[in-house]
Structure formats: C-alpha cells, structure tokens
C-alpha cells in the first residue's frame, strides 16, 4: 500500500501550564522552557507540513498561551493555508489577546472544562480557573470562529454528566467534545481514582445519545469512550504513522502523544531533519507502520485494517511489550490485565473532599492518597 500524506499536525508548543489536571496527557517527564523550539523553527515546520498535504494544525501544550509568539505562529500557519485550532484552558487569554489571535487567522478554539461545579472543577484542575473560563466562553462567542467545549469525564464527575452537558450547552458552542480520560501519562498514574465502572459508562452513553438528539443541528457532539470497557481496541491515531504527526516542545517528531514511553525508540528532531523525511523515512515513523510488525492474533485478524492492532503505547504500558496486541482487545492473550484493572480500580471508594476550595499546595498535600496532580517542567 502506498504511503499517504499526514493530514494533521499536533504542535505541543510548550509543556508549561498553569493547571494541574490529574488526567493530563503530557508525559511525566516534561520539556523545560529553555529547551523549547524557537519561533522560527515552528514557522518552518508549519510550512513544511502544509507542503506535505497536512490540512489541520492543532496548537496545544501544556498551555499554548504560555508562548508569547502564539499569534505569530497562527498567522504563519494560516498563510500556509493550514486550518488552525487552539486547544486551551483559556488561562492567559484576555479580550485583547483573543482579538489578536482571531485577527491572525485562528479558525477554531477548543476550551477545556473540568466540571460544571466550580469547586469540583477547580479541585480537578488544581487551580481556581473555572470562573475565568465561563467569562471567556462569552467573549469567544462574540467572534466568528468555531467554538468547541471539551469536557474530560471520569469516575469523579461522571455521575452528574447530564448537569455538565446542560451547563456547557448554555455557553452556545458549535461542538462539544465529551472525552473519557485516556490512561496514559498522568491519567494512568491516577487510574484508580478515574476509571468509571461499566454501569457508569453505560448510563453516560445513554445521556450523550439523548443530548445529541436534542441538540442536532445546533451542537455537534463527539465522544471518546474509555477503551478499558470496550471489546476491541481503538484505532489509535488512525494507525501508527498513517495520518498524524506530533511535535513535542523540544522539536521531536512522534507518531502520538505517548510514544516517548516506548523504550529503545529514537525520535528525530525537526531542528535536524525535514518533516517530509521524518514522515517517510525516519525509523520511528516506520516502526509500527503497516502490518509487518503484527503478532497473532492481529496478523490474521479481519479487524487489523480497522484498528491496526490498537495502541502501541498502551500495549507497552500494560504488557511491557510495544509490539503486543493491545490488551484492550478481547482476543488478546493478555486481556485479563484489563479485566483485573477494571475490577481493582473501580472498587475504590470515590473521593469526598473537604478541601475543594483550598489552594494548590494544600490540595497537593491532602489529595496525595487519591491522586497526583500534574506538576510543571522544572
């Protein structure tokens, strides 16, 4: 099969973030500020990406607003004809800066929410940020750009999903992303506090289906389900090196957010190589591309062209072997790892916290037995 071009570029322009979300998808080992890729390199990477056929640029982090050159990046991406999406907590976004980003050509903004209840939202984010997000939603709606609200769902908030959806609907988004936490990075570390039960998930699915019906034509809902409760694995990133490239804050090109955890991998850096070479020829992008690496039962499975054997990072994190079948798959010989995790993690009591309004250092200390808050790079 001929190699197709990448369709989307995920640019993690910094790992710095004022929030401490307990399910953050950033790696536990983060890039420090002084190792971040300079502006000129990012601008070149965006032009190269457009030249390869990339359509969408997702600017993310960390908190991308922590980079003062964000507007310059958006303008360059837009000039290269990329569709630019800003994935943000909104912290660092004033009325004036929003205007500047829109004027630079921003197409889409995706604002994250942790909960609909202020105390709970701040408790999950480890920062008092909820009220600002609500103000910001109104400002965003004043511009003619696409507006997505993103809500990460897990065991600590899933029981009031209906309320959360109604609160987000009142912000008049075009799109709502209801994303169950995915167990990598900080979320894996905190899985026992976050993984919902099967009954909670089933109830959530019914609620989302009803909301979709009610809001049809007004708000598009996209849902990411927790794969621990699925029969088959997700087609992670649409297959390794098939559709997406991610550039980390230091300039390393990865096939996905979590690939850095796989031992023995070398990720080439955009400071030294052209993006096109990295996509077609670098060892990392070829490592799990296609079907040659697949073990049984994937190798002879009809689903291999749909889910590509699932997620390589999850396979490594849970089985110790990156080339194993994703253990989420019920056909995996190691599927019991998932069954055990679901049984053990979901029997833990939910947290009742008296410290929801506390400052971060108190939360960090008092919540230590429940979860670890994401901390910033040194």
């Amino acid at each position: 099969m001929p190699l197709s071009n990448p369709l989307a570029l995920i640019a993690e322009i910094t790992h710095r973030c004022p929030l401490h979300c307990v399910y953050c998808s950033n790696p536990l080992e983060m890039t420090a500020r002084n190792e971040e890729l300079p502006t000129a390199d990012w601008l070149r990477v965006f032009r190269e990406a457009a030249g390869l056929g990339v359509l969408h640029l997702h600017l993310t982090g960390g908190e991308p607003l922590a980079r003062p050159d964000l507007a310059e990046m958006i303008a360059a991406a837009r000039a290269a004809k990329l569709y630019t999406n800003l994935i943000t907590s909104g912290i660092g976004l004033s009325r004036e800066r929003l205007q500047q980003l829109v004027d630079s050509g921003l197409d889409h903004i995706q604002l994250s929410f942790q909960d609909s209840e202020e105390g709970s939202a701040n408790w999950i984010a480890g920062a008092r940020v909820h009220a600002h997000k609500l103000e910001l939603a109104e400002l965003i709606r004043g511009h003619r750009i696409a507006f997505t609200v993103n809500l990460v769902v897990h065991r600590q908030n899933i029981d009031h999903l209906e309320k959360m959806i109604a609160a987000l609907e009142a912000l008049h988004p075009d799109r709502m992303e209801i994303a169950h936490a995915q167990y990598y990075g900080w979320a894996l570390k905190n899985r026992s506090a976050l993984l919902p039960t099967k009954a909670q998930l089933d109830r959530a699915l019914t609620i989302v289906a009803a909301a979709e019906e009610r809001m049809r034509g007004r708000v598009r809902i996209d849902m990411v389900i927790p794969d621990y409760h699925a029969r088959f694995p997700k087609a992670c990133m649409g297959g390794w090196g098939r559709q997406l490239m991610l550039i980390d804050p230091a300039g390393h090109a990865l096939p996905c957010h979590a690939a850095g955890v796989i031992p023995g991998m070398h990720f080439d850096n955009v400071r030294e190589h052209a993006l096109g070479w990295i996509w077609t020829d670098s060892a990392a992008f070829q490592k799990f591309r296609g079907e040659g690496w697949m073990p049984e039962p994937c190798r002879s499975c009809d689903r291999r062209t749909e889910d590509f054997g699932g997620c390589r990072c999850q396979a490594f994190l849970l089985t110790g072997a990156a080339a194993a079948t994703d253990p989420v798959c019920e056909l995996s010989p190691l599927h019991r790892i998932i069954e055990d995790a679901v049984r053990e993690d979901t029997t833990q009591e939910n947290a009742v916290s008296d410290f929801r309004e506390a400052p971060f250092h108190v939360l960090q200390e008092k919540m230590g037995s429940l979860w670890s808050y994401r901390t910033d790079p040194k």
Partner: protein
Amino acid sequence: MAELTDASIPNLAAGCRWGGTIEAPVVLFPEGAIKVEGTGRAILELCAGQLSLAQIVQKLEQQFILAPPGKIRADVISFIENLHAKRILDY
C-alpha cells in the same frame, strides 16, 4: 432543528471554510475535512450567504436541465440538512 424554507439563506458555519487545492478542493471544519466533487461542489459553492434556497434550486435547475422535475430541489434540501446536522452549514 430550525426548519429549512425557500427563504433560508445557507452559508458555511463559523469556523468552516474552503481549503485544499483548485483541482481538489475540500471544506475544512473543526477536526475534519470533506472532499467536495461534482454536484456536491456545485451546491456548496452556492451556499455562501448570498442566495436563498429557492434561488439556489433555480440556478441549479438552469445548469442541469435534464434532471427530472423536483429532483434537484429534493437533492439540495437533503444535502444542506445533512451538512447542517454536522455543523458545516448554517441557514
């Protein structure tokens, strides 16, 4: 869902725009893109916030004179409603 009438004026929704190349145009929207070819392209190019549904149908009927009566109108309505549900077209 708001009702589509003859007076409705379809337009690309906020954050949706044309992209790709002249030979292979696409409509870009949050998290996706659709290739636009043939009649779909002919319809979508008219959904630019200028013409009403009735005017769009009339224009296409002049362009595709061999289409059976009523077919173009039915096709245009189903096309617009489908993209409206995906939040790509407003009216």
